[in-house]
């Protein structure tokens, strides 16, 4: 009964009302960052790093939508980054450089790919689903490597960022930063809405108990497929942005390692909390960026040569560190933020 007493005070829609501080702080930080960047002296570097964080935030959030709320472990989500990226790259080589065309094309292409591969892979469950999405991802990867006209293995460099309605506004790193932030905010607001909607409730219900959902008259497959398509389109949008950020597209966009990293970001941030995925992406990318220096700093008591080796082989620490976080911090970073409130 004590268990009951503890939770009885929690109203049903707690998910949406209790931890609002986190996303507000998060987005405020993103909005304030350009100011900070101006004063940091390394403006270009800070902006491009944070832009990457936001782009991967969108992709991780897309994955969280099906992984966290639908328990669908897609191990091929990087494919959509690739589709988005190649839509930009391929159209640009044919002279279509406007984002107002590139992005819709990327979204439609992502949706179609998601529809076809989802319709097949959602007929399987568990490990088989993971494997089949991985296979589809790899299929697209090898397709990209064989596209000789578009750079094949080496990928292709974009001559410039996309235009917006004919203007070269995105040439400015600031403008591009704001565009990514708007996309992130839009994707977040949309995802929040989807999760709380009738549709999202069916998706969450299916995650908990698919048989029960069928027994009250839902056909889970249709909802899972729709969620998969939505998620794919969001990741496709992230791909468009990523190509513009790097001004480069290559098959490396959609390696299976990239898919794995996306899963890691979601788990690191905390499954099933959309802003958690953004935080996960940020933590992952910032650690990846700064861990060598952190290691170098922390190991001040070691010989200079050893410190250099350590910084050089930072991945030896990175991997175990991620595993430790996932193992010991249940619910990821969001779980950590949530805990003190439970008392």
């Amino acid at each position, binding site marked *: 009964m004590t*268990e*009951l007493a503890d*939770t*009885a005070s*929690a*109203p*049903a*829609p707690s998910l*949406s009302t209790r931890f609002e501080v986190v996303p507000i702080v998060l987005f405020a930080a993103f909005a304030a960052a350009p100011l900070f960047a101006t004063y940091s002296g390394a403006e270009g570097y800070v902006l491009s790093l944070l832009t990457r964080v936001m782009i991967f935030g969108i992709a991780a959030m897309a994955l969280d939508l099906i992984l966290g709320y639908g328990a669908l472990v897609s191990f091929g989500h990087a494919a959509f980054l690739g589709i988005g990226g190649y839509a930009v790259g391929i159209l640009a080589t044919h002279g279509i450089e406007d984002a107002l065309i590139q992005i819709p094309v990327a979204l439609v292409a992502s949706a179609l790919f998601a529809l076809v591969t989802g319709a097949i892979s959602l007929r399987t469950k568990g490990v088989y689903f993971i494997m089949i999405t991985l296979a589809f991802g790899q299929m697209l990867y090898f397709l990209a490597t064989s596209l000789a006209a578009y750079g094949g293995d080496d990928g292709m460099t974009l001559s410039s960022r996309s235009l917006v309605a004919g203007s070269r506004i995105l040439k400015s790193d600031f403008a591009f930063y704001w565009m990514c932030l708007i996309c992130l905010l839009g994707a977040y607001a*949309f995802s929040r*809405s*989807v999760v*709380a*909607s*009738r*549709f*999202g*409730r*069916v998706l*969450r*219900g299916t995650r*908990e*108990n698919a*048989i*029960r*959902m*069928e*027994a*009250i*008259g*839902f*056909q889970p497959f249709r*909802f899972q497929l*729709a969620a998969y398509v939505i998620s794919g389109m969001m990741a496709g949008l992230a791909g468009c942005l990523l190509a513009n950020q790097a001004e480069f597209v290559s098959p490396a966009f959609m390696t299976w390692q990239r898919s794995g990293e996306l899963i890691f970001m979601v788990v690191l941030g905390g499954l099933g909390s959309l802003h958690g995925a953004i935080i996960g992406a940020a933590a992952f990318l910032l650690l990846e960026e700064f861990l060598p220096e952190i290691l170098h700093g922390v190991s001040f008591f070691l010989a200079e040569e050893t410190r250099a080796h350590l910084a050089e082989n930072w991945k030896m620490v990175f991997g175990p560190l991620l595993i430790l976080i996932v193992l010991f911090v249940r619910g990821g970073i969001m779980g950590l933020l949530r805990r003190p409130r439970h008392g």
Partner: protein
Amino acid sequence: MAEPLLELRNLRKAYGALVVTDDVSLAVQPGELHAIIGPNGAGKTTLIHQISGTLRSDSGSVLFAGQDVTSLSMPQRVGRGLARSFQITSILPGFSALENVALAVQARSGSSFRFFGNASQEKALNQPAMDCLQQAGLGARAHIPSGLLSHGEKRQLELAIGLATEPKLLLLDEPLAGTGHDESQRVVETLRRLKGRLTIVLIEHDMEAVFSLADRVSVLVYGRVIATDTPGRIRANPEVRAAYLGEEEMV
């Protein structure tokens, strides 16, 4: 007699050489509470699976409201008004009791392909859901995460979810399974209140409950229906007594 609401014709299901449902034919009249009893392993749950569409039948047909539903999936049958509960409690543990029921209401009211608007705030879903919870005697516990409900309350929740799908016929697979005396009393009371308003097919081990609730009883032994009759005559039926001898005391 009126046309039966549910009719099973020569239903059969075998796992290899093991025939679990053997040529079962059965007619359930509108409005009656029809109990199916039988010793352990008689194939009662398999039969419910076949009626609800969880399992495909090897042969035979299921007619519901005069139409052949044998080839329909479970969600399609639910859409026609054929709902079921599960022997092993099957709820959404992370959802509140109210949301469990509201989802069932949602399945019946309008499209669920709506991506905007907070579903948990929809009055049109929550109000009927609350009614169903109250009918099942669970109104006071509506906002508790259903995973934290007691076992008996979960059984009541199963009933409420079943009701919320607005069924013409409710298949109940051992609604009393695993409940204590007081809890089972509550569920029996709920069933008594529902009786007459709804056609119910009840599979149950608790003989006392069955004989006090049922209008008619069918006895299933090794996948065959050996008798269908009023509770009084079933109790007196020598064949039924023989089947149960050494199994359980008949009331």
